[in-house]
């Protein structure tokens, strides 16, 4: 018997097969252990991040949505929008906000007038408006802001509670949040509950 055959015989023996099983299981156990450690680390890291978040005070908010008699937005289709994205801007003066209200075919005239009456020059002397625009695949009956928080990098997270029965058709929203002071915002994340 050649040396090679002898080695192969030893490798194929049952004892070695048991060892093989151990070699197979052991790495899996180690991998599982590592995964648990990483998950815990990630979780702790997240908790640590949460501690650094700052709650943002707001005065009021309004959800406008795309409907025939409400937010018209009639030049815009919902077919091409990116449902994972939102856009935002902070208005801290009356002239800027007028640009928003004067978007062509965007508002029902009564709604635009109501907005104009509410967000007038006096309003912008000591307050500002954060506008967030976003699409959703479904429209709940009611939306409420639960919290707004910001991290050290000015990333804003808005937690929104959706309640009631939903209609299963896409919709486009304008969320107007009234702020006492303008915010410096890098990105906005909307969390729906």
């Amino acid at each position, binding site marked *: 018997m050649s040396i090679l055959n002898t080695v192969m015989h030893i490798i194929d023996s049952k004892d070695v097969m048991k060892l093989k099983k151990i070699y197979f299981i052991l*790495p899996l156990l*180690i*991998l599982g*252990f*590592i*995964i648990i450690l*990483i*998950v815990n*680390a*990630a*979780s702790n890291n997240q908790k640590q991040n949460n501690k650094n978040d700052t709650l943002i005070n707001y005065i009021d908010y*309004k*959800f*406008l*949505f*795309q*409907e*025939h*008699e*409400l937010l*018209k937005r*009639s*030049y*815009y*289709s*919902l*077919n*091409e*929008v*990116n449902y*994972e*994205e939102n856009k935002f*801007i902070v208005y801290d003066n009356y002239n800027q906000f007028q640009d928003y209200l004067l*978007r062509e075919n*965007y508002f029902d005239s*009564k*709604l635009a007038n*109501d907005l104009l*009456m*509410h967000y007038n020059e006096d309003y912008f002397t000591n307050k500002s408006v954060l506008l967030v*625009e976003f*699409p959703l*695949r*479904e*429209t709940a*009956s*009611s*939306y409420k802001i639960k919290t707004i928080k910001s991290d050290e990098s000015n990333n804003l997270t808005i937690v929104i509670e*959706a*309640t*009631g*029965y*939903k*209609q*299963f*058709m*896409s919709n486009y929203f304008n969320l107007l949040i009234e702020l006492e002071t303008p915010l410096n915002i*890098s*990105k906005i*994340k909307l969390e729906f509950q």
Partner: protein
Amino acid sequence: MLFVFGFFLLNTRLVYSQSSNDKKIVKDDLYLIDYSNEHRLKSDFTFSDYYSVAIWLNYPTYDEDYLVNKKEYYTNVNSFYLSIIGGLDEYDYYSSSSLPLITYSIKVLDNEAKKTINQLARFPFVDCIEINSMYNNFGLGDDFQINTTPPQFELPPDGGGSGPTTYTGAGIKVGIMELGYPDKSYLDNYFNKNINLQIRNKAEFSLSSHTTSIARLILEGAIDVSLFSAPIGGLGNFSIGFEPPPVGGGGDSNQFENIVAGIDWLIDNNVDVINLSMGSTTFSPTVDSISKIFNHVVYNEKITVIAASGNSSLEYVAQPSLAPNVVSIGSLSEDNSLSSYHSYRDPFANLPKPNLIDYDFINIYGKFETGTSCAAPRVTSVVARLMQRNSTLKSNPQLVMSLLQASAKQDFTTKHNLSFKENGFEDRYGTGRVVYEAALSALKLGYYSSFTITASNSNNSILVNKAINLTKNNPIQISLTALVPSYTEAETWDTTVISKIKIVVKDGNSNVVKQITTNYSTMYVKYTPSSSGNYTFQVILLDNKVSDVNIKYSYAYYR
């Protein structure tokens, strides 16, 4: 030392995945949905390339922890995988709290971006990656017009092509439960006809484009139906101008009461079919009241209920669409592909959903809108026309379900790996697209029948033995359905009395060429013969579960 060894193993696994069959993850499942050739925008609009990358993860979703703590589960596991991807700003990548999904956006799909995507696709935990190319058209500062001409749904002739349209839903009563009532003047003007519409109570919110869309889609398919609208209220704290909330009480507090009262009203008016393009997708580990009620309405009142499956991006099917007696409708996009967002999973894993799919778009008030809300009313209109042809369907919702399923087609494109369930349904599209002409043909040719299973039926008895002649490559599709008993509105349905049944297709030599066995309440078989000749299909009772309440079954077939 162990750590070093562990990381070595991890790295080895990744390298292995690149050089083995796992490459299929990249090759087969990485695809690009590119809308840029559709020219929906004005020619003078300058758009920027803008892509969203959706990374779908393949971790399990059906364990108990998931059912109880779905949000925490997804948040933790997604965060974990993000940490493996490594070195990424939390806000560069969006980690879903309700789906096995991580997304991020890129400005230009250049070689560097493609390289990153290919690297991501090689991670073993990545199921597939979707790249959506789209215009950056959210409306902030962009000045453009949509120039879209989406295909419009038209009342199809009875026999397809340019044949006559005999059945238009005349004499059929269709109930719709919606947020507000349809604007009758709009519908009258749109169809140039005095639409037959009755409203239970006039919602203060005078017009809902969603409600109008549903009514219009039903009428486009079946212009002569009588519509009965039962508004459920809602739209509570949307700011509509700066007026008080439009519905008494505001918000959702009285929605459920309105639903119950609306159902009573629809039953009192003897509606034949109810369309639901609404529902609840708020996950709970129990069946909710709206599902129980509608399942009971189907079982007890023999009213067919058609419900949208929901748009929660591969999330669980909505309630009440998940109820076994409710015909759940998923959706097809205008390009004839399975929509990427319709809900399709049954959270209780007892029943396959949706049952069927249909197109899901409408161009209304100059806007192109989509969602399973628009798919359901198309099916409702088909049902109304079939009911006009044969009034037997009015009191046999299980026959309606079987007929639609047996005549469905799979003439659309999909990008997922097909997965067929025990009862013959495909995981995401059920039995396929609803085809009115095919269903009408089966109805006219008498390709349907019913039987009842009682406690005295013995196991292994043959309940149906049907001889049929098939031609080569022309499939036969068979569907069998029973209504699952639902004894009261407040109780969950009773699946324990549904028997185990087998459908067998045999060739001329009595060889079994196709069979399927299930204890689901609805099933589907498709067999494509390789040669023409005489065949037989049989329905065999394998395990009789009936005790006190007899169960009626209806089957239909189409070839």
